[in-house]
């Protein structure tokens, strides 16, 4: 799968790669804000913020794909992360900025407990169990007192000031003239960091081990890989990403309900990965952009929106069954 990408990556000199990264950062942090300022399409900020956050969660899903597991349960962790952040802020007065890593860590912890038994499952079994997991998260949120059940948690304050030794690093969002931009920058930074981490994992020995796991777990064990540990580790990282994304969404909507992340979201995360291409680190990011943004653009189609959207999805699948990024492979996607 990644053989081609890797060989391409290796073939490319590190300067062109650096240029690519710089161009990407430039686009995200300079061009997009400039474009929005010029055109006055301020609503794009929220859409792109969503894309960035959803692609962070999708990056987690992609990582579980990388160890050979189909994960349709990321919604559960996004929801959990959201609730952790919301509860800590509203009931314990913890700063949003502190709840962010805590939400991620809590999800990682939960995923270790859940992952230990279910990661033994493979193929469709794992996929279906994770699908169920999303429902479990929703039902749990409905049933628990601490989540305020069906009523959800609302009127959550905006992220406050973040300062270290009296030095303000991030100002209080409520005082900002343009919190949209602030949220966008925050999400974009998070996305960039996430994909950096992902890229590092894949291109380090850790990634090779993950690939060995993906291809043959028994053999992987026989060459001395602690497969159980590696699986749980990858799943925990994945869930960490999910929790982060969920927590930020809560900050944006200033509310959370058991239905804030549902099965449909989990399925979407999976689709983003497929559409971008499972063999490419940046696949989920591209997939998220295309699918999420695509839907918004299609709203001109009125009642035919879903028809066209799904039709396009199917057509894309027929033309590029290995994901959009498989366009990069000069050889084409034949077996």
């Amino acid at each position, binding site marked *: *799968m990644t053989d081609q990408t890797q060989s391409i990556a290796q073939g490319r000199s590190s300067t062109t790669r650096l240029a690519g990264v710089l161009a990407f950062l430039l686009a995200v942090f300079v061009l997009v804000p400039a474009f929005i300022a010029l055109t006055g399409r301020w609503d794009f900020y929220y859409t792109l913020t969503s894309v960035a956050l959803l692609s962070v969660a999708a990056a987690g899903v992609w990582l579980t*794909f990388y160890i050979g597991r*189909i994960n349709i349960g990321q919604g559960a962790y996004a929801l959990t992360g959201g609730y952790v952040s919301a509860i800590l802020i509203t009931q314990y007065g913890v700063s949003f900025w502190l709840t962010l890593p805590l939400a991620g860590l809590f999800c990682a912890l939960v995923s270790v407990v*859940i992952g230990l*038994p*279910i990661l*033994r*499952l*493979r*193929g*469709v*079994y794992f*996929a*279906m*169990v994770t*699908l*169920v*997991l999303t*429902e*479990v998260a929703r*039902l*749990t949120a*409905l*049933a628990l007192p601490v989540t305020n059940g069906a009523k959800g948690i609302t009127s959550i304050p905006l992220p406050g000031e973040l300062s270290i030794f009296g030095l303000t690093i991030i100002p209080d969002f409520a005082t900002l003239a343009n919190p949209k931009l602030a949220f966008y920058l925050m999400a974009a930074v998070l996305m960039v960091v996430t994909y950096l981490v992902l890229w590092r994992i894949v291109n380090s020995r850790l990634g090779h081990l993950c690939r060995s796991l993906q291809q043959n777990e028994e053999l992987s064990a026989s060459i001395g890989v602690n497969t159980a540990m590696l699986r749980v580790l990858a799943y925990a990282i994945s869930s960490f990403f999910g929790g982060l994304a969920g927590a930020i969404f809560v900050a944006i909507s200033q509310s959370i309900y058991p239905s804030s992340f549902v*099965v*449909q979201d989990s*399925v979407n995360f*999976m*689709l983003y990965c*497929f*559409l971008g291409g*499972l*063999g490419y680190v940046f696949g989920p990011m591209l997939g998220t952009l295309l699918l999420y943004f695509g839907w918004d653009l299609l709203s001109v189609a009125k*009642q*035919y929106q*879903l*028809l066209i*959207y*799904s*039709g396009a*999805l*199917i057509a894309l*699948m*027929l033309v590029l*069954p*290995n994901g959009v990024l498989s366009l990069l492979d000069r050889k084409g*996607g*034949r*077996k």
Partner: protein
Amino acid sequence: MEQILANGLYLGAQYALIALGLTLIFSLMNVLNFAHGQMYVFGGFVTYTVVAQLGLPFIVGLIASAVVLAVMGALIEKFLFRPVIARSKRDESTMLLAAGIAFFLDAVILLLFGEKQRGVPKVVNGVFNWDMRLIMPYDRILIAVLAIALIVGFILFMQYSRTGRAMRALAQDRVAAQLMGVDVDRYSMIGFALGAMLAGLVGGLLVTITGINLGMGGPTSIKAFLMIMIGGAGVISGAIAGGFILGMMESIGLTLLAAYGDVTYLVIFVTLMIFLAIRPQGLMGKPWG
């Protein structure tokens, strides 16, 4: 007690039928058909259209559902799944396709049949009441009997017919089946059509009782997934067992846990996850299905 069992059986029969179609498609093509629930809904709407709008007898509606869905399944296999499977590097890619088809059917159903809940009048009236210990409307009994008959018919078909044998062989080893002279393309298509047809038939059967609406597709798929997980993916007996087990669990859970409110499905889900942790291939599945 009698009531719980009867409810469980009734639910189990319809669930098993739904799971059968899903597991058949899975075993033949290794495709987890996310659109199964939508096919079920489509079947329901076809029967509705034929019976409630055209005023034809119920059985005509059922047949129409079966035929329409079989044709739809065949076309989907031939023009969508087959080319994608042939060209994609990983089996899972078909999941994106299946999900796309689910969305597409959702859109088509909305445009064709509208957003409203639909239903057709009862086929038989009256309620069987045994001393208040067992209450079961006659139409449910009829539907359960029909469902069980269909299940039995399906098993006999798979076991003894030439087509059935070819499909079983195909599910176990594609290449070997080819070497036996089985036209794999043709039988894959037949299998998919059959699976879709089963989904459509259940939709048609249930439209007389539960009615049908656009929203029923997704949750139906999830339940069907549950059932084949319980029984073991790609195994026919497993699908049937899974269907009845889920039906029973639902019936028992709702009765016993009623006092605790919303927890039945939570309990079912958690039980299932524990069960799978102990037995990863379901009741009857081959390891790693």
